[in-house]
């Protein structure tokens, strides 16, 4: 087990290096001369060739690429992600101030998905192949297929524009969180519902459920106590481990609802061509992604000793 973890961490370090190379080289795909772009950002449209050269030297852009990379990587490892061209604040600060909003949104989305998925999954499983089951499984497919940006707009249309119950934009009290959380959670709820259903079906075939019935327990207790707890544990674990995947949806949800999180920061920076911030955000997302994948792999290997390092490679 320990060797497995060490090997996985080794692989992770390698992957993160690869991530840094890609993130770094992205900036070189930007059409045009980066020194010129940055100079224009700083000093306005009418910059002289001298100013551009000055910027180039100052930023080390005249050096060979690999030296630029190592210098950049050293800075990144020390937490220096550069400065935002828009606000002149350190990129790391920009990201960290928005982190709580994004985490709050992701957690709320996760909660929404569980609140929908657990009861629907249970009902589907206990009434397998019934109309209720078919309808909920169709609903799950619908949920997977629904673009979250559209769902968000429809929710705004209904609850904010027509009914006037909930605010449209920004972050504030709980009422601000409801619509973005539902938007983010629905897609996940669809997947989680299927998961909950199959987990429940699996549990219902277990011998201890037969024991519970043989004791003379009511069906309510058999399902609601004995089956539920067993079925829910893996589902909650998996949903928790999918946290990083929610961040992907958060980018769009934050943009629709003007939620002041990292996703919105990234989209805004892309349009403002604030590349240092974009770079920082990408690195941040990739780091979270890689870390959570590592946790997923290790915890699965822990839960199921048959899953070993080899499985991932085949």
């Amino acid at each position, binding site marked *: 087990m320990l060797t497995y973890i060490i090997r996985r961490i080794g692989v992770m370090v390698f992957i993160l290096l*690869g991530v840094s190379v890609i993130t770094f080289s992205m900036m070189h795909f930007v059409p045009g001369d980066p020194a010129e772009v940055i100079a224009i950002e700083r000093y306005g449209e009418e910059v002289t060739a001298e100013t551009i050269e000055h910027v180039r030297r100052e930023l080390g852009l005249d050096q060979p690429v690999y030296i630029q990379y190592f210098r950049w990587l050293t800075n990144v490892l020390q937490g220096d992600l550069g400065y935002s061209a828009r606000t002149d604040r350190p990129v790391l600060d920009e990201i960290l101030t928005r982190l709580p909003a994004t985490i709050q949104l992701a957690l709320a989305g996760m909660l929404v998905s569980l609140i929908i998925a657990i009861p629907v999954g249970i009902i589907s499983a206990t009434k397998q192949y019934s109309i209720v089951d078919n309808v909920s499984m169709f609903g799950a497919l619908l949920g997977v297929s629904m673009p979250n940006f*559209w769902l968000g707009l*429809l929710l705004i249309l209904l609850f904010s524009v027509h009914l006037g119950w909930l605010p449209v934009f920004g972050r504030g009290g709980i009422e601000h969180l409801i619509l973005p959380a539902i938007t983010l959670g629905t897609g996940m709820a669809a*997947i989680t519902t299927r998961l909950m259903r199959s987990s429940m079906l699996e549990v219902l075939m277990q011998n201890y459920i037969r024991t519970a019935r043989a004791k003379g327990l009511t069906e309510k207790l058999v399902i609601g106590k004995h089956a539920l707890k067993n079925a829910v544990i893996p589902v909650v674990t998996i949903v928790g481990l999918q946290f990083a995947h929610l961040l992907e949806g958060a980018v769009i949800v934050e943009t629709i609802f003007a939620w002041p999180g990292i996703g919105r920061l990234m989209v805004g920076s892309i349009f403002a061509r604030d590349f240092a911030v974009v770079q920082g955000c*990408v690195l941040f997302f990739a780091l979270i992604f890689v870390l959570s994948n590592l946790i997923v792999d290790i915890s699965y290997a822990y839960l199921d000793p048959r899953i070993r390092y080899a499985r991932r490679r*085949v």
Partner: protein
Amino acid sequence: MESVAVERAISALIKVSPYAIEVFERLRENRLAVVGLAIVLSLTLVAILAPFIAPHDPIEQNLGLRLLSPSWQYLLGTDALGRCIMSRLIYGTRVSLQIGVMVVGITALLGTLLGLIAGYVGGVVDEGIMRIVDVFLAFPGLILALVIAGLLGPGLFNIMLALSVIGWTGYARVVRGCVLSAKERGFVEATRALGGSNLYIMFRHVLPEALSPVIVMATLGMGGVILSTAALSFLGLGAQPPMPEWGSMLSGGRAFMRTAPHLTIFPGLAIMVTILSLNFLGDGLRDALDPRQKRKLEI
């Protein structure tokens, strides 16, 4: 010489076709898959025949007829510039399906090829390709696409490029897995012992194994590509005006949600129906291509 090749091709076809028929028979039993297939085929027809079906010009502005509600003349109403929404949706099918087909085509081809090479050659080549796959999979897909498209500048071509860059990894992984399992079962060695060439073995024995999962992935992946395209366009990175694209139509409707909600509702509906039908078809294909393997959990 030629007749031998023809003979071989025919015998290969005869070998394949009963299987294809069998798969189709199984697919037909799945009601949702049939519905999915029917919708996908109709959408394809709509895309091809767009100029003949669309009641109006999708780009022509008519400022006198702004934001009309659905009526007999404009079945789905008009947008902020007085353009027929129905016609724009019909032409939008073209855009979405084209991008879907092209990106899926490119990524499936590239991924399959790299997966074949990685699995078949093994060693350093395998290690190298798979580590690149690992690195790409370390990014949340949509975020990477968003950044690439953002850096390259708005436009459909750049979106296609971005989605292709992130899309090939899944195919490579799956195909490599198929190759390895074929190797494990030893019949590659057997063929080689009989004097089969490497290329012959790859295309004759290994590729058909990998085809089923690739077809399923491509069908489901098409939905993913169309959804991502719409999402990026919605954010303003994809199609640029006046091109009729579903995502950007949605985004254009946002400002008029209060007065003209149909601008928001119809494009989203088009996206959802398309993706839903591809999902139906993909799920059905998965069951039909491998009846033993029950629907596994997708996370």
